[in-house]
């Protein structure tokens, strides 16, 4: 797709959800797709957004407390956050909506679907947290054990040779403002998912009940953040789910192998 055909980010709006507010980034046109970003915050309007927005409207809530929007004081765990998002979708009459959830956002999407399958039509989960792999088969990497920049670098296979890496999170990775934003996002991760760390021990037991929401799991085979075995739990647990392994990609196939990623997304939406 040419640069001219890519669609820019359309801007931000704020909506009330009960006593609180959600800030939403929108862009593109067509049937809406909900995008739930990852644990470091909204990474910005990337190439994959610009391309997909030519055919779909992307709706990206800036998760409260994750560096770009203030936190909601009473939100004490991930369960609270998914309820805020679910309420917003219902009240704005956006449900049922397609969803693409990345990493922590992927976990949120899975839990939202289980809590209310009427929220989503189809679901793509990209390297989702939420499931602990069987013993000995790897762990979700610990975001609190390393500095934010080291975490960021480890989310891709080769940050030094990835052109779009420099654009992630607005590009100012080492500015004081970005340091603060990353700290906010990771602090919110601590509030929402400190222990059990980034997973729900009950989730694997619920997945079999998720019927009627065709699901594609996407995982880069060089992913250092979530183990393949956890993706297999998702793919085997959700009826009819597919596991789509992207060769040569780390935890961000949407950035590292954009064409392949979009191919998987489009085929999943078309097939279902």
């Amino acid at each position: 797709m040419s640069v001219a055909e890519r669609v820019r980010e359309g801007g931000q709006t704020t909506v009330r959800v009960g006593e609180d507010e959600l800030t939403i980034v929108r862009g593109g046109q067509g049937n809406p797709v909900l995008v739930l970003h990852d644990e470091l915050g909204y990474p910005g309007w990337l190439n994959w957004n610009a391309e997909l927005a030519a055919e779909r409207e992307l709706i990206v809530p800036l998760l409260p407390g994750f560096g770009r929007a203030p936190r909601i004081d009473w939100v004490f765990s991930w369960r609270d956050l998914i309820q805020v998002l679910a309420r917003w979708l219902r009240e704005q009459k956006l449900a049922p909506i397609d969803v693409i959830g990345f990493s922590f956002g992927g976990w949120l999407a899975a839990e939202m679907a289980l809590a209310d399958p009427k929220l989503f039509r189809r679901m793509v989960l990209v390297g989702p947290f939420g499931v602990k792999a069987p013993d000995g088969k790897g762990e979700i990497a610990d975001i609190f054990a390393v500095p934010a920049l080291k975490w960021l670098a480890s989310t891709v296979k080769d940050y030094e040779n990835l052109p779009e890496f420099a654009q992630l999170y607005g590009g100012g990775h080492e500015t004081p403002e970005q340091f603060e934003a990353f700290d906010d996002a990771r602090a919110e991760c601590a509030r929402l998912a400190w222990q059990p760390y980034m997973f729900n021990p009950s989730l694997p037991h619920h997945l079999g009940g998720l019927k009627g929401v065709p699901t594609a799991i996407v995982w880069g085979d060089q992913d250092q953040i979530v183990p393949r075995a956890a993706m297999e739990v998702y793919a085997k647990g959700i009826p009819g789910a597919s596991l789509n392994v992207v060769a040569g990609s780390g935890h961000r196939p949407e950035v590292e192998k954009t064409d392949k990623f979009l191919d998987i997304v489009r085929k999943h939406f078309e097939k279902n």
Partner: protein
Amino acid sequence: MFLMWFTERAYHYDPETEPEKYRELENAVLRQRSFFALPNEMMDPKHGGMLLNQYLDEKIYSEQLGFDGVMLNEHHATPFCMGAVMDVEAAVLAKTTEKLKIVLCGNPVPTVGNVLRLGEELAMIDMISGGRLVPGWVRGAGCEQLANNANPAHNRELFEEGIDVIVKSWTTPGPFRYEGKHFHYRVIDPWVLPIQKPHPPFWIPGLVSPDTVLWCAKKRYPYVALATQLAPTVEMWKLYTEQAAREGYQAGPENFGYLQPIFVHDNEERAIELGKRFMYGGAFAHFARPEWMFPPGYNSKEATRRLARLFANPNQPGKPIHQAHGDETDEEIEDIKRQIYVNYEQSRKDLQMIAGTPKTVIPQIRKVLEVLRPGIFSFWLDGPVGAADRKRCLELLGSEVMPAVREIGKELGLVGPFERAPGSVPLASGKTPAQVAQEDRLAAAFA
């Protein structure tokens, strides 16, 4: 004045008797740039046990030497301090000493999980000791949150609510129930309660965190500065004094404590040489890597912004995102050591280490006392030094240094917290408080 002494109870080897192990441990710390989370396969429990017993023997001996108290602290997952459960040591001292105050600076409340049990431990120590416990509360360093899996984002809430629960358990007749935000108890009815009423005095150690200083002033708890540089310590004590005024009281020396690194020996050169070992492994600079000292959510917004300016530097071209550790050559490690130890002389000039014979250390201590005017003064003895030299240092502190310091204290009016209750001197509303620290003495201190 109240005079006590402190040691981290480090796991180390004496370089004069076990030079290879001494070197191996230091090199490992430097390769990791952190004492925290050094692999514990390097720890020999028999050797560690020998050291723990030595440290306890020193404290028991110090009762004979005339110290008013001994200070303990707590850290986890580090050879920097083996006091992983300092209440165990405090319990031993409660039984084996008779007069010493047992000062805990402090229990890391957010990390203990069951704060009611912590209250019970402390109550038992106070009961067994006959009412000699001085508990202290800390938030715990950032790495303590990781070591105990305590949520750093809830650190301050856990700290304040946890202390609240402990104090309630000591002062509210039981049984009663408690349902809070972070703590929930069906039955609070401890049959162990402190002898000291309404509860033991609390002393709060810190590293010049304005939030902690202000909290202490509001609560009228003495604030014990942990070997911080003199100038910023003066600033924090001014902050405390002004807050105290807003609370309606005049702060005095009884509200302040200071921890002073020191080494005393009969021979000046020997003392200076042994004092240098305080910098082993980079000392506090390598306590834990920054990302472990400041886990997300641990700091206030203001502190995070200060850190952001410190750590985020877009003007460093080519700064690697990955900081490689662990594969340095021995020569590179020796170079890191040179960079550490080259600062020793400056640390002595800054009075961050006072090392010498009694004759030479007393005037240096005087300088610190003239600036800060603390009613609580703690000598800090650390670094990989053999037992005999440590013992001699304590003896010289007891026989020569402390009597002189007490005289200086009388001369300067350094009233301790057991002579005058902190927060007991009223100050009329709107009246400007007298400063406790004497900023105009700073220049003379370094002359």
